[in-house]
């Protein structure tokens, strides 16, 4: 069963139509990868699901409910969290404040906090530091940790490996594998190796439309298809 | 603007502007009283001033509250030169150039300092700069005449006593009942210089520069990406607008033969300009004409009407106070807010978008 379905979603930014027709079924559980070239509409798709840009047509169905008209905050409360491309860290707040803000009631659930420390030990180390002083990888960890501090059904993650060192990318991949056991992850990624290692199902977006969707195993085996849909020269 | 290029609405607006132009051209003959000529001259000058403001707000989307300051620089330039050098054309030229020079220096300084920051910052900084100019004009009384301002004489051809044409008896000649005197020459000086400046601006926005400006207004990031240097263009337009405002200030100074903080620098004139450009329609140039005509006429004649209304409601609470002729800005303010909400394109823009494309 799908946890999220996009039906002919169309989104305009200003006077430019960015998404023309995005139709997508994200199954429950595991990592679903959305691939595509720069400017194809990956980020816009995530932001439209989150309600940060309102789709002008079509629908966004989350667990049977149309959320396309809802306010971002309400969408979040339904159990969707968002790790944006720029990580969306509050630099002037400490690591602790960044996380406590993300809790619904202003209190930590100790079990979840322990799990986060386990996934990202660096956050415990820099607990009282202001977040702007963290490294890029640590900020990315904080952003992901913030997305799972409350139980969520679906996490939207936008290019988490961008600009990170290989060692940190591996740690990140482990963390996502762990998180995907209990939560569905919709991952937007340019780094195909990273995406391939995580994804079960996938889709490719091109010029605001879904150009291909299927299992990651099939796509990884089909080199010509990859070249046609993802190579920069096309 | 390309959307509304050749609608019937556009024709209506252009015809109206043409009609206004014709009325202004023959104003001394059509409306033969001093007050009407005052109104006509004021309209001419404000059309230029408002159109130059439209270059900024309508074509680049930047809000400046310093426009009145540049108008003031031009006016004070003319006034001080005429006072110090005596009433001659040399004084007019020196004054105009001095006003333009000061305006350009200040515009470049403000532009480079603050056009790269947010629009909001720019609006706030220009507001602060304009208020300082007003304070300086009031305080440097040796130079500017302080609060009282400066009274001086215009070049002798503009004196009411000057006879442009004489009849057989040596009296000033009348054509269609209009005296051919210096006052008439002064009006046509205002009309022609204003017309030239306005026409130059219309040409400017029709040129490739106008296209670039629109591109920047529509999408700053995109324009930057295409390779337009947004800050340079904005500073350039800011300077052009300042230049025209300064020149129109000099013209106004010559017409009024008096320059003081209240007539050329006060914040209420800035509000007038803002109201005119928004009511007329931003980004059209024609809107400036319509806005200036409506507002100036309202200033001169609406107050009379409100006086009547205030007397009629004298027994009601508060209402007569709000209908007091001095409170006309209250009603304009409300109209202004409603316009920005419901007709952000103003009169000209709204009409131009109507009708079928032909």
């Amino acid at each position, binding site marked *: 069963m799908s946890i999220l379905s996009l039906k002919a979603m169309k989104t305009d930014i200003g006077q430019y139509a960015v998404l023309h027709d995005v139709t997508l079924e994200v199954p429950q559980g595991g990592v679903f990868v959305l691939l595509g070239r720069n400017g194809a509409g990956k980020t816009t798709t995530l932001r439209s699901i*989150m309600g*940060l840009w309102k789709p002008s047509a079509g629908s966004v169905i989350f667990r049977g409910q149309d959320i396309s008209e809802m*306010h*971002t*905050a309400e969408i*979040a*409360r339904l159990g969707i*969290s*968002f790790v944006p491309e720029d990580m*969306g860290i*509050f*630099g*002037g*707040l400490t690591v602790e*404040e*960044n996380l*406590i*803000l*993300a809790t*619904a009631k*202003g209190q930590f659930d100790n079990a979840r906090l322990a799990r986060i420390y386990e996934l990202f030990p660096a956050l415990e180390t820099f607990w009282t530091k202001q977040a702007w002083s963290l490294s890029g990888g640590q900020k990315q960890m904080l952003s992901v940790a*913030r997305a799972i501090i409350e139980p969520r059904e679906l996490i939207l993650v936008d290019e988490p490996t961008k600009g990170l060192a290989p060692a940190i990318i591996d740690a990140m991949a482990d963390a996502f594998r762990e998180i995907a056991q209990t939560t569905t992850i919709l991952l937007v990624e340019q780094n195909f190796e990273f995406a391939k290692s995580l994804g079960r199902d996938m889709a490719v977006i091109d010029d605001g439309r879904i150009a291909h969707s299927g299992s990651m195993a099939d796509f990884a085996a089909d080199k010509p298809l990859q070249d046609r849909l993802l190579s920069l020269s096309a | 603007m390309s959307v509304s290029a050749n609608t019937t609405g556009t024709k209506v607006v252009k015809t109206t502007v043409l009609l206004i132009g014709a009325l202004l051209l023959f104003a001394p003959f059509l409306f033969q009283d001093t007050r009407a000529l005052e109104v006509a001259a004021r309209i001419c000058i404000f059309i230029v001033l408002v159109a130059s403001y439209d270059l900024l*707000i309508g074509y680049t*989307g930047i*809000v400046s509250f310093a426009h009145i300051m540049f108008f003031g620089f031009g006016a004070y330039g003319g006034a001080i030169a005429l006072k110090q050098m005596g009433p001659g054309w040399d004084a007019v030229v020196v004054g105009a150039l001095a006003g333009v020079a000061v305006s350009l220096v200040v515009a470049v300084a403000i532009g480079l*300092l*603050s056009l*790269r*920051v*947010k*629009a*909001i*910052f720019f*609006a*706030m*900084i220009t*507001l*602060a700069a304009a208020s*300082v100019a007003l304070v*300086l004009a009031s*305080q440097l009384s040796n130079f500017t005449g302080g609060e009282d301002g400066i009274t001086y004489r215009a070049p002798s051809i503009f004196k009411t006593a000057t006879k442009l044409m004489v009849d057989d008896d040596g009296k000033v000649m009348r054509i269609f009942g209009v005296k051919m005197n210096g006052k008439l020459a002064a009006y046509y000086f205002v009309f022609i210089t204003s017309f030239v400046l306005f026409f130059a601006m219309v040409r400017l926005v029709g040129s490739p520069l106008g296209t670039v400006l629109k591109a920047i207004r529509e999408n700053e990031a995109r324009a930057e990406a295409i390779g337009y240097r947004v800050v340079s263009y904005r500073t350039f337009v800011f300077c052009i607008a300042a230049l025209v405002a300064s020149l129109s200030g000099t013209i106004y100074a010559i017409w009024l033969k008096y320059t003081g903080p209240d007539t050329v620098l006060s914040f209420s004139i800035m*509000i007038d300009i*803002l109201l005119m450009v*928004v009511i007329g329609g931003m980004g059209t140039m024609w809107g400036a004409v319509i806005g200036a005509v409506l507002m100036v006429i309202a200033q001169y004649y609406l107050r009379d009407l409100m006086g009547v209304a205030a007397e009629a409601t004298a027994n009601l609470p*508060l209402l007569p*106070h*709000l209908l*007091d002729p*001095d*409170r006309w*800005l*209250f009603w*304009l*303010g*409300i109209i*202004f*807010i409603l316009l*920005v*909400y419901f007709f*952000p394109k103003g009169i000209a823009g709204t009409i131009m978008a109507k009708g079928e494309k032909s």
Partner: protein
Amino acid sequence: METITKIVTRFGGVSLLPVAVALLAFVLIGAPSSWVTLTIAGLAMGMMIFLMASGLSLVFGLMDVMNFGHSAFISFGAFIAASVLAGLSGWLGSDLIILNIAALFLAFAAAILFGMAAGWFFEAVIIKPVYKDHLRQILITMGALIVAEQMILALWGGAPMTVHRPQFLEGSFLIGDITIEVYRAFAFMLGLAVYVALYLTLNRTRIGLLIRAGVENREMVEALGFRIDRLFVGVFMLGSALAAMGGAIWAGYETLITPALGGEMMIVVFIVVIIGGLGSIEGTLLGAIMVGLMANYVGYLAPKLALTSNMILMMVILLWRPNGLKPAVK
């Protein structure tokens, strides 16, 4: 040079600027007793300006909304407080200090209540339709300012209005050969109290945490499940109430107020938030104190330059730090 920079940073960085200005002024003024009087006057003025400016800065930081009509709250606050005090002049003249305080309290309460109500109305009717559209925001709030100023003229007339001060805030006290006006000390203490309350709210409460986070990144706070727009109404009302309160205190300080008051203070408030950096109350306080001190020192040393000095101060600081002294982290 680098070591100097480090030492300065350790002791507070840009927060030391007012101290530096005060020290420079001490040298220029020469007479210690005049310097102390001017410094206290500057601090009191700074605190009042802080009240007027803090709301504007927070509102902008949180919602990217600049309210050019903010000065209307200041004017209304001043005139409402002055009217209440005039109505209760019997209490003010009384020797009973309790009646004095009650009158003052009622005057401030009226101004604050008005500020909150008007702030709510302003946010809902004037500003909400033009979120995210700076051009129309500037135009509409400017239009609202015109209407508000005309209403003040219609209600109170154009003539200057005398403000009655409570008996116990009149006069001055002496410390050595230094005279300190009671009202200045009062204004300073009140401003300081509000600053401390604001500071604690922002740094010690969950609402404050939300506001600080919202100033940095509104979208992200919403993506975490919080309605910033509802929080914003509250902040807007608070900011308007503080502006009205600032106006009320200012009325008592000036003792003679005209409808032009709002417009004059607006320029100062703008300069303060630009100097301080938009979105942070620490920055606003710093900017307000700088402007208050400069206005008093320059007013004493070179009276003609008083207003221009603030402008020059703003230009210099903008050249040095284009985002102001202490902007909120963005």
